[in-house]
C-alpha cells in the first residue's frame, strides 16, 4: 500500500527491512516457501522466533506492559507487511496470539512468570483445546468435563481439530467444571501439560495429505488447580476475550497481499485469470484498509467498529480465491500432490515448476478450511447481520 508514511514511519520501515535482511536466513525463507499449511512447523519457525525474541519484536502486538515494543497500529502494519513480503515463516498463533494475551490479562502472577517467558522462548509450544466432536460452530455445547479432587482437576473428554498438537507440550482448553448451570456458565479455562498421563494425540490427515490437525483424547488427566486461569466458570468470558483479541490484534491482509504477489510473480496471467488476480488484489487491498482503519480507531480510544466482524469472512474468501487461482495458473503442474511431508524436508520429492505450482494443490485443499474453522462463513454473516446491520 502506497500510503503517505511520515519520515519516522519510513525510517522504521527501513529498520525493519535491514533487520529482515540479516535475521531472515535463506533456510527460513525456504522453509516458509515450502509450507503448505496455515503455520510453519517448529523446525522452520523456531529459529525465526528466537531471532524476533532476541530483537524484542516477537510479541509486537502485545501491550508494552506485557512486554511488547509499544508500536502503534501503523508500525504493526508496516512490520507485518515487511515480514510477509520478505517471506518470513508464519508463526503459529496458538501461543503468541491466543493464550499469551489470556495469560497477561487473566493469569496469576505465578502463571505469568511460569508461562510467558517459556512461550516467548519457544520452550513451550501451545495447542488450542476448544472444539469437540459435534460442537462445531456451537462451542457452548462442549462436553469435556473437569471434576475437582483436592488440588487437582480430573479431566475427561475429547478435543478435535487441534492444530499442531503433535508438536505441542502444552494445551489450553475449555472444560466444563459445572454441569448444573447454563451451558456457557459452567465452563472454565485450564492449562494442560501434554505430557500428563491420559493425554493421547491422534493425527487427522487433511484431504491435502498434510498433518496439521489432531484429535486429543483426555482420559482422567490430572491437572493441578494452579493451572486454572481466572475463576472457575470464567472460561466463556476468557474464550470470548481470546477470540476478539485474535481478530483485532493484527491483520490478515499483509499475508494475503504477499501471497498474491508471489503467485503473480511466478507466472504470467492473461484474460480471465488476470482479471481474477486484479479482483483479488483489490479485495485484499480493501481488506488491508478495513483492518487498518479499525486499528487506528481503536488506538484513538474508540470501541472496535462493527466492520471488524467482517474481516475473517473477507480474508477467507480472498484466501480461497488466491489458492483457487493458483490451481488454474500453472496448468497440470498445479495438480501435483506428493504424499510425502513436509515439503521442506531435505529428502522431499522434487516439485515440477516453481514452489507456487508445486504446492498449489495442497494449499488449495487446505484453504477450503478457511470458510469452516473459527466460525463458518454462514455464522460470520449471521453475526454481521445481527450485530452490524441490526436485523
Amino acid at each position, binding site marked *: 500500500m502506497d500510503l503517505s508514511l511520515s519520515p519516522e514511519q519510513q525510517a522504521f520501515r527501513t529498520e525493519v527491512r535491514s533487520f529482515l535482511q540479516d535475521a531472515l536466513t535463506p533456510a527460513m525463507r525456504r522453509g516458509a516457501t515450502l509450507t503448505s499449511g496455515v503455520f510453519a512447523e517448529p523446525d522452520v519457525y523456531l529459529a525465526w522466533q528466537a531471532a524476533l525474541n532476541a530483537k524484542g519484536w516477537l510479541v509486537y502486538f502485545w501491550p508494552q506492559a506485557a512486554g511488547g515494543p509499544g508500536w502503534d497500529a501503523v508500525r504493526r502494519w508496516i512490520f507485518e507487511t515487511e515480514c510477509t513480503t520478505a517471506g518470513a515463516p508464519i508463526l503459529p498463533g496458538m501461543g503468541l496470539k491466543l493464550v499469551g494475551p489470556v495469560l497477561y490479562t487473566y493469569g496469576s502472577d505465578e502463571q505469568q512468570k511460569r508461562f510467558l517467558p517459556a512461550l516467548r522462548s519457544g520452550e513451550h509450544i501451545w495447542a488450542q483445546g476448544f472444539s469437540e466432536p459435534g460442537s462445531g460452530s456451537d462451542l457452548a455445547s462442549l462436553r469435556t468435563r473437569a471434576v475437582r479432587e483436592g488440588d487437582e482437576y480430573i479431566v475427561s473428554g475429547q478435543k478435535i481439530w487441534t492444530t499442531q498438537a503433535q508438536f505441542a507440550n502444552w494445551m489450553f482448553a475449555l472444560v466444563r467444571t459445572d454441569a448444573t448451570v447454563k451451558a456457557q456458565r459452567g465452563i472454565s479455562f485450564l492449562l494442560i501439560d501434554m505430557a500428563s498421563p491420559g493425554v493421547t494425540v491422534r493425527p487427522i490427515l487433511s484431504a491435502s495429505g498434510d498433518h496439521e490437525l489432531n484429535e486429543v483424547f483426555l482420559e482422567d488427566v490430572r491437572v493441578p488447580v494452579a493451572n486454572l486461569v481466572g475463576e472457575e466458570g470464567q472460561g466463556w468470558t476468557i474464550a470470548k476475550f481470546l477470540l476478539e483479541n485474535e481478530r483485532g490484534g493484527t491483520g490478515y491482509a499483509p499475508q494475503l497481499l504477499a501471497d498474491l504477489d508471489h503467485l503473480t510473480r511466478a507466472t504470467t496471467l492473461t484474460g480471465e485469470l488476470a482479471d481474477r488476480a486484479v479482483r483479488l488484489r*483489490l479485495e485484499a487491498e480493501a481488506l488491508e484498509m478495513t483492518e487498518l482503519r479499525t486499528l487506528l480507531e481503536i488506538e484513538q480510544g474508540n470501541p472496535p467498529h462493527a466492520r471488524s466482524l467482517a474481516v475473517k469472512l473477507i480474508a477467507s474468501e480472498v484466501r480461497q480465491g488466491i489458492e483457487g487461482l493458483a490451481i488454474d495458473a500453472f496448468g497440470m503442474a498445479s495438480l501435483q500432490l506428493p504424499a510425502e511431508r513436509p515439503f521442506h524436508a531435505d529428502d522431499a520429492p522434487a516439485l515440477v515448476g516453481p514452489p507456487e505450482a508445486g504446492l498449489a494443490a495442497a494449499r488449495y485443499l487446505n484453504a477450503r478450511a478457511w470458510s469452516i474453522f473459527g466460525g463458518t462463513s454462514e455464522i460470520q454473516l449471521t453475526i454481521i447481520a445481527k450485530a452490524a446491520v441490526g436485523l
Partner: protein
Amino acid sequence: MNITPSEEQVLLRDTVSRFLADRTDPATAGEEPISQDDWRALGELGLFGFLLPEAAGGLGGGPQDVMIVAEEFGRALAITPLAEGIVGAADAIARGGDAAAIETWVAAAMTGDHVLAVAVADVSNDGARLTGRADFVLSAVDAAALVVIGDGATWLVERAAEGLSIDPVRLIDGSAAGMVRFDGTPALALTQGDRDTTLAMIRLCHVAELVGAMSTLYEQTVEYVRQRQQFGVAIGTFQVVQHKLARMFVALEQARSLMLKAAIVDRDDAGFVRGVLGAKAYVADAAQRLAEEAVHLHGGMGVTDELPVGRGLRRVILLARVFGSASEARVALAA
C-alpha cells in the same frame, strides 16, 4: 497516514450534508439534476472555492476534501456537475489557464454561475483550431465552456465558439450528455499539467459519490426489510435476507476502505492515479451489485420509477461507467 478528517473537514461535511438535506425531498431524491439555484447556492456557500487551487482564489482542497464533499452528494443521490465541472474543468483551467481564462471561467464556476464540462476528445488541431469529436460528454449541454483533453494537449473551448455543435442525449440517470463536434473550433491551449491526475481527480469524485449512494441504498434497504411483511413476518427475519444485508454491509465497508486509501494521499503522489483506478475498479463493481440487490430486495416497488432505490441504481450505473468502467479499470490495472 491520516484517515481521520480534520475539524475543518468535519465542518465541511456537515455543511454540505445539511444543505443537501434541506433542499432534497427524500421521496424525490435523484429524480432531477440539481437546479441552477441550488447549484449557485452551493457556490455561494464557498463549497467550490474550497476545492479549487489557491492560485485561482480557492482554498486548495485536496483529494480528501473532494471525497468528503462528493460522498455527501452521492448520499443525496444528487445529479450535479461537481466532478467534471469543478474538480475536473475548473481545476484544470485554474492550474493551466492564463489569468484571463481564470478570471472568466474559474471565478464563474466557483460562484456556480457557469457550468463547465470536460471532454476527452478525439481531435486534431491546427494551431488554435480543433476538429474532431467527443461523445457522451457529461454536462456539455449546459456548459458555458469545455475543457477538451486530447491526446497530447488540453484546450479550453467556449460554448459560443464557431464550429462547435453539441447534440443532447438523455442518459440513464435522466441527465443530458452532449455529442460534441468540433469543426475548426477556436480553442485556447492550457498548460496541460498532468492529464492523468485531472482524470483521477474526476474518478475519485465519482468513487466517493458511489460510496455515498451505496450507503443510502444500504440504509433504505435495511429500513425496508425491517418493515416489509411477507408470509406474516418481516422479510428481514429470513436468514437469506439477513445474509444479503450482511453482504451489503461488508461491500460498503470495503468500498469505503478503497475510497479512503485512494484519497488520503496527495494528488501529486506517485501512487495517486493508480490508487484511484483501483478504487474505481472496485467501487464501481461493488456499487452496482449493491444497488441491484437493493432494488431486488425492494421487490416490485424497486423496479418502478417511484422509489429512490430505482433512481439510485440508475445513478450508480452511470457513475460506475463514466470516465472508465470497472472492467476497463481492471484491464488497465492488469497491464
